[in-house]
């Protein structure tokens, strides 16, 4: 099953910022004191609209999605629309009942991991976070839910990368998804200067490629970094030449994936926190299908984003870093 391959067209929902933890690296500054959440009806309608636009994967994050009151119903809506489902969780609330409820509804659980136990607990600001998460994985295995680990890569955790691969195999994970720390949200304050520099990104990327080869029989390993030369020369979906007059004939998923719905209802392309200049609008005021229709053909919509991306592509083609965090670059587009 492919959840992040080229055929995966992803709708990424952030239904709430409520969370049982207050992680130092949280890009959405979620935590226990956050109470708001998006109404289920809004997200259900957005999910149906997204399916019509060709999205075939719903990914739920947060906040902690297991604390979202409408989680099960929302997953049922996704399943009813033949979408695959992914839930990104810190894993601490995956007791037997939760695991049982998710069994038929989730295609892949993505459990966060920040490094060896001491570092994980420090980042999670919880002395038992690692212990509890590891214990709860037993419930996930017992329920037969496929799961992966999402490893946040920073200057502090890069030395734990090989350990993380071994831990993933030991726990029975199918995937190790390596995601470089982005200094946004709470991380911009609490973990300033802990994200990887260009040289470290290059090392991490190379090391991950070799690890992927070493573990290919046991584990799929992916890193959210890409060779700058690939960006400079390739034609990702966003850059596929398309006659603007015919854009309306194509589903939104063909040129924007992932599509993000943030916890306030704002819809943005590609990355949580994307510059609002490129937002499609909000599902709090408009249906996703209407937002997509207007954004596709508006000069301030897809055309503007595509033009800015093309400029970025040119800049990256002449910039020295061999490896880049493409989505982070996109999120900073002005």
């Amino acid at each position, binding site marked *: 099953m492919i959840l992040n391959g080229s055929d995966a067209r992803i709708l990424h929902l952030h239904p709430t910022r409520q969370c049982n933890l207050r992680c130092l690296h949280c890009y959405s500054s979620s935590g226990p004191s956050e109470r708001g959440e998006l109404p289920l009806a809004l997200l259900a309608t957005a999910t149906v609209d997204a399916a019509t636009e060709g999205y075939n994967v719903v990914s739920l994050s947060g906040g902690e999605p297991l604390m979202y009151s409408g989680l099960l119903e929302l997953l049922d809506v996704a399943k009813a629309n033949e979408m695959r489902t992914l839930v990104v969780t810190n894993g601490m609330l995956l007791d037997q009942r939760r695991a049982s409820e998710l069994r038929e509804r989730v295609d892949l659980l993505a459990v966060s991991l920040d490094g060896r136990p001491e570092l994980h607990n420090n980042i999670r600001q919880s002395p038992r976070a690692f212990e509890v998460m590891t214990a709860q994985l037993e419930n996930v295995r017992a329920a037969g839910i496929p799961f992966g680990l999402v490893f946040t890569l920073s200057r502090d955790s890069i030395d734990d990368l090989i350990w993380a691969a071994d831990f993933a195999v030991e726990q029975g994970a199918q995937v190790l998804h390596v995601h470089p720390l982005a200094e946004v949200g709470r991380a911009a304050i609490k973990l300033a200067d802990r994200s990887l520099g260009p*040289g470290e990104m290059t090392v991490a990327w190379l090391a991950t490629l070799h690890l992927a080869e070493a573990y290919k029989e046991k584990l799929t390993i992916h890193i959210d970094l890409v*060779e700058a030369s690939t960006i400079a020369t390739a034609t990702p979906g966003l850059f596929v030449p398309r006659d603007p007059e015919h854009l309306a004939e194509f589903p939104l998923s063909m040129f924007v994936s992932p599509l993000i719905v943030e916890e306030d209802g704002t819809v943005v392309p590609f990355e949580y926190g994307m510059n609002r200049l490129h937002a499609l609008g909000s599902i709090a005021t408009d249906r996703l299908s209407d937002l997509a229709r207007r954004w596709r053909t508006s000069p301030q919509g897809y055309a503007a984003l595509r033009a800015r991306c093309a400029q970025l592509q040119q800049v990256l083609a002449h910039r020295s870093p*061999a490896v880049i965090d493409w989505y982070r670059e996109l999120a900073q587009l002005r």
Partner: protein
Amino acid sequence: MDVNPKEIAKQLIENRAKFGARSWEELVTVIQAGGGKLVQFAYDPDGDWCGTGHFPHWPPKRIDELLGLASRFQGEMVIFPWGIPVIDSYQVVLKRNFIR
């Protein structure tokens, strides 16, 4: 090629600071610009290092940059044809040996 990819990953991570961020960028950028990829890297505690790039054709694109890199690193470059009886690719070893 008899290499252990897990051991290479370990070498890369453990020695990232010794080799230097800028050097990493330069090395990988130049190999990629030449149409190749870095397949092995080893670093000795005394400062010697050895990186191996694999190129599908010779000469690689932008070979001047590869030669310039070897010069800047005060290293040496060794080229191995790969494939018997017909050469189908090339290995390029860039290395610096302080004892030499």
